[in-house]
C-alpha cells in the first residue's frame, strides 16, 4: 500500500459506541500494520508530533456518536479523508447492537470486527492497491494567486509550461503531461476525456487527446515531443481529477521523451509561467471591463 494511511477514532469512553470506535481502530492497525494510529487526546492537546504524518496521509475517521469528536478534531485542517465511519450507521447496516455496557460484549466485538474488515476490504479495492498506474506525485511547492474566489496555483519547480497552459514534468527519459490550474478553471467541470493511443509518436505542440466540459472542448497541446507510453485511464471514471488536482492525480499522459533539451528552450519554468498566467488574467479582466 503505497499511500500513507492513518486512523483517528473518537475517545468516547463513556458510551459503548465510543469503545467500539476505539476497538475498530485497534483492529485496523492489527490488520494493516502500516497504518498509523492517531491518538485523539494527543492530537487535541499538542499536535506538532502528528504534523508530518497527517500532512502526508489520508485518514480514516471513526465517530462513535452524533457529537462526532473525531470529525471535529480534523475538520479545521485541510485533511485528505479516505473514509468516515459513523458507528451508529454501521450498527444499523450490520444489524448488530453493541449493547450498553462499557466492557464490550460479544456483539460489540463482532460489530468492531465487521467494521474493520469492511474498511480493509474497501482499502484493497480503492486505488491504493489497484495496479492502476498510481503516479507517486509528492507534495509540491507552488506560487498562488487568488482572483475573486478562485485560487490559481503553479508549481515552483520540476514542471515546465507552454503558452497553451499545458505542463510537462520530466523524470529521467520519461515525462508526465497535463493541464494547468488556470486552464482547468477556465474550462470548468471536465466531463469527458479523449485519451491518446499508447504508442503514438508526437511532436512538440501536437494535440494529444482532448477534454470536454459543458462550456467547451479543448485539446491538450503537448509541451514536448516523444512517444506515448501510458495514459491516465482513471480519468475516464474521474475526469474531475483534472479539475481538482491538475498537477498530480489529474495527469493526462506519460511520454518517453525524444529531445527534451531542445523542446525545453521553448518552455517556461514555474516562475515564468506564473508571470505569464498573471498577465493573461489581468488582460482578461481588462477585457471584461472593456465589454461592460
Amino acid at each position, binding site marked *: 500500500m503505497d499511500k500513507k494511511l492513518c486512523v483517528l477514532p473518537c475517545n468516547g469512553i463513556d458510551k459503548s459506541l465510543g469503545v467500539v470506535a476505539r476497538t475498530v481502530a485497534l483492529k485496523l492497525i492489527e490488520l494493516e500494520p502500516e497504518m498509523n494510529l492517531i491518538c485523539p487526546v494527543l492530537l487535541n492537546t499538542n499536535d506538532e508530533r502528528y504534523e508530518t504524518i497527517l500532512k502526508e496521509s489520508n485518514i480514516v475517521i471513526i465517530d462513535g456518536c452524533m457529537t462526532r469528536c473525531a470529525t471535529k478534531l480534523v*475538520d479545521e485542517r*485541510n485533511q485528505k479523508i479516505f473514509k468516515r465511519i459513523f458507528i451508529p450507521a454501521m450498527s444499523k447496516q450490520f444489524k448488530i447492537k453493541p449493547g450498553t455496557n462499557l466492557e464490550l460484549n460479544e456483539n460489540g466485538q463482532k460489530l468492531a470486527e465487521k467494521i474493520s474488515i469492511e474498511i480493509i476490504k474497501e482499502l484493497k479495492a480503492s486505488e491504493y492497491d489497484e495496479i492502476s498506474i498510481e503516479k507517486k506525485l509528492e507534495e509540491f511547492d507552488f506560487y498562488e494567486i*487568488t482572483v*475573486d*474566489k*478562485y*485560487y490559481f496555483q503553479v508549481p515552483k519547480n520540476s514542471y515546465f509550461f507552454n503558452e497553451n497552459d499545458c505542463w510537462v514534468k520530466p523524470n529521467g527519459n520519461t515525462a508526465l503531461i497535463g493541464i494547468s490550474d488556470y486552464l482547468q478553471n477556465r474550462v470548468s467541470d471536465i466531463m469527458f476525456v479523449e485519451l491518446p493511443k499508447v504508442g503514438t509518436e508526437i511532436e512538440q505542440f501536437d494535440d494529444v487527446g482532448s477534454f470536454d466540459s459543458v462550456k467547451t472542448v479543448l485539446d491538450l497541446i503537448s509541451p514536448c515531443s516523444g512517444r506515448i507510453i501510458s495514459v491516465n485511464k482513471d480519468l475516464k471514471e474521474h475526469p474531475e481529477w483534472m*479539475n*481538482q*488536482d491538475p498537477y498530480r492525480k489529474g495527469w493526462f499522459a506519460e511520454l518517453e521523451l525524444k529531445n527534451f533539451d531542445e523542446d525545453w528552450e521553448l518552455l517556461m519554468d514555474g516562475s515564468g509561467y506564473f508571470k505569464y498566467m498573471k498577465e493573461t488574467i489581468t488582460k482578461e479582466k481588462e477585457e*471584461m*471591463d472593456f465589454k*461592460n
Partner: protein
Amino acid sequence: MKKKVGIIACSGEKLLGGTLSRAAARIVVKKLKPHDTIVLCQPLFAAGGLERHGGQQERDFAKEHPTITIEGCEELCSKIAVERYSGPVAATIRVDEIMKAHPELKPKSREDLGKDGLKLAEIIAEEIAKKVDELHKQR
C-alpha cells in the same frame, strides 16, 4: 480598486422565494454589476474545505469582502451561514418583503417564474445593485 461584493442567494429549492433570490442574484452578477460582484454558494460555506476547490474559498472570500445575502423567506439561511463561517453580513435583502411591496406582480411558480416573476427578479436585482453602490460609496 473597489473590492468585489459577495452575493449569496438563499436559493432555497422549496419556495418561490428561493427561485426569485437565485434569479435576482444572476441578474446582478451577469448584467447589472458584473465587475463588482461575485456569486457565492450558501451550502458551500458549510461544506467547507472538502476537496481543494471546496467551500474554503467561499469562507475566505466572505471574510475579506463585503457580502449581501438574498433571503427567500424568514429563515435567513444565507445570513446565518455567512455569519457562522465567515463574519458579519454587509446587507440582507428580503425577497418576501419585496414581493409584498409589489402585489400587482404575481410570479407563476417556483418551477417557472413567468413574466411577472422575471420582472420581480429584476426589481430585486436593482435593489441589490443599489446596495452594492452604497457599499462602495462607504469604502
